[in-house]
C-alpha cells in the first residue's frame, strides 16, 4: 500500500471540513471496497477521513411509519436487526446476502451507497423502496441520488448521515449472485406501498434503474405472472466475463418474478 495521511473525524462537520480543505481526501467508512481499490491503485486518495468514531452515524431507529438507518450501520447489524426484520424483512434479507459474513461485519450502508458499485445490493433497496438519503446538507430522493456507474449527486464535502425508508405494504428482493463475490449479476427489488409499486434493478446495467412497464403491470395485479413476460431491452445492459447483456436481460424478468413471489410470501 502507498503512503497516505489519516484523520479520525470527531464529528460530521469535522469530516466535512477535512474534505473541503483537501479535494484528494476520501471518507473511510468500513473500507471493504475502498481499501481493496487503493491496494490496486484504482483509487489513490492522499488522505483518509475515518468516520468510525462518530457514534451518531450508526444505529437503527423506527420513526413513525418509517425506519431510519445510520450511514455507518454495518450490513450485519441491518441483517440481524429485529426492527428491520419486522418493518422491511426484504431489506434485512438483502443486507444478509451482501458479500460474506466477514465483509458484512465491517461494510456499511453509507459506504455502499456513496460508492454506487453497479452490482451492489443496497442501491436496489434504496430505489426499490423510494427511500431518502439524508446528508449533512440536504435530503435526497433515491430517484435522483444515483447518477451513473460509481456516480452519485454527492458534493465534495457532502456526507451521507442516514437513510430513511418508508415501510411498504410488502417488498421482496431476489438476486442472481456471482458465485465468487456474491455481487449481483442481476438483483431485483420490488415493493408495494401507498405511493405505488416500485421495481429496481441492480447489476444488470451501469447503474441501478427502475422498470416502469413492470411497475404498472404489478400495480394492476401484484403477482409473479404479471412480470414473467415483460422483457427489457439488452442494448443498455452490461456485458462482461460473468454474463452477456442478453443473459442479464433474461435474468431481470426471472429475478423480478421471484422477487414478487418473495414479497407475497412475506419472508
Amino acid at each position, binding site marked *: *500500500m502507498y*503512503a497516505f495521511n*489519516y484523520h479520525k473525524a470527531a464529528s460530521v462537520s469535522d469530516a466535512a471540513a477535512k474534505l473541503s480543505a483537501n479535494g484528494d481526501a476520501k471518507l473511510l467508512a468500513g473500507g471493504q471496497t475502498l*481499501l481493496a481499490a487503493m491496494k490496486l491503485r484504482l483509487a489513490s486518495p492522499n488522505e483518509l477521513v475515518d468516520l468510525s468514531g462518530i457514534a451518531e452515524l450508526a444505529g437503527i431507529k423506527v420513526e413513525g411509519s418509517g425506519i431510519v438507518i445510520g450511514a455507518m450501520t454495518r450490513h450485519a447489524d441491518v441483517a440481524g436487526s429485529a426492527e428491520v426484520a419486522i418493518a422491511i424483512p426484504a431489506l434485512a434479507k438483502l443486507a444478509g446476502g451482501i*458479500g*460474506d*459474513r*466477514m*465483509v458484512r461485519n465491517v461494510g456499511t450502508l453509507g459506504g455502499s451507497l456513496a460508492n454506487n458499485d453497479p452490482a451492489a445490493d443496497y442501491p436496489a433497496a434504496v430505489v426499490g423502496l423510494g427511500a431518502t438519503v439524508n446528508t449533512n446538507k440536504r435530503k435526497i430522493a433515491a430517484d435522483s441520488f444515483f447518477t451513473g456507474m460509481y456516480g452519485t449527486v454527492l458534493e465534495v464535502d457532502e456526507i451521507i448521515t442516514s437513510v430513511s425508508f418508508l415501510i411498504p405494504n410488502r417488498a421482496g428482493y431476489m438476486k442472481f449472485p456471482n458465485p465468487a463475490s*456474491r455481487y449481483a449479476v442481476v438483483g431485483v427489488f420490488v415493493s408495494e406501498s401507498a405511493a405505488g409499486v416500485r421495481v429496481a434493478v441492480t447489476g444488470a446495467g451501469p447503474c441501478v434503474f427502475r422498470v416502469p412497464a413492470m411497475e404498472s403491470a404489478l400495480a394492476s395485479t401484484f403477482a409473479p405472472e404479471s412480470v414473467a413476460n415483460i422483457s427489457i431491452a439488452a442494448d443498455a445492459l452490461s456485458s462482461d466475463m460473468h454474463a452477456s447483456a442478453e443473459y442479464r436481460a433474461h435474468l431481470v424478468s426471472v429475478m423480478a418474478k421471484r422477487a414478487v413471489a418473495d414479497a407475497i410470501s412475506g419472508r
Partner: protein
Amino acid sequence: MMLKISLTVNNKAVSADVEPRTLLVDFIRSNLNLTGTHVGCDTAQCGACTIHLNGNAVKCCNMLAVQANGAQVVTIEGVTPSNGTLHPMQAAFRDHHGLQCGFCTPGMVMSAIDLVHKHPAPSEEQVRAELDGNICRCTGYHNIVKAVRAGAAAMKG
C-alpha cells in the same frame, strides 16, 4: 505520518507507532510476530486472515491497523488454551481431517468459532452458507463442514 495505536490482542495490551498504510494483518504478523494469521489472497476473498475484532470475524488484510485502535483483537493464537491443548474447534478440525495443507485453517477456525457464537447448533446448510468467505483449495469442504458441526457440539459441552 506515524500514529500511535493502543489495542488489546489476545488479552494483552499492546501499543505501537504505525503508518496509516499499515494493514492490520501486517501489524499482527510483523509487529506482534503472531504469524498464525495468514495472508492468502490479500484481496479480502479467501478468509485466511480472519480474526475477531470486538467479537466479530473480520478479514484483517482489508483493514488498516489504525482502524483497530482501541479494539479487542483475538487471533488464532488467542483461542488456544495456555496448557498446550487445542480449542474444541481446532480439535474438531484435527479429528475430522478438516485440513490438508493447513494454510486456510487458522482463518477457517476463527470464522467457525464466530459462526458458532452466532448459530450455536448450525445445520450443514448453514455452515456451508456462513463459511462462504473462507476458501480452501485442498479439501473440497466436506470434512471442514463435518468439523465445524462437531466443533459446535464440543463448544457447547
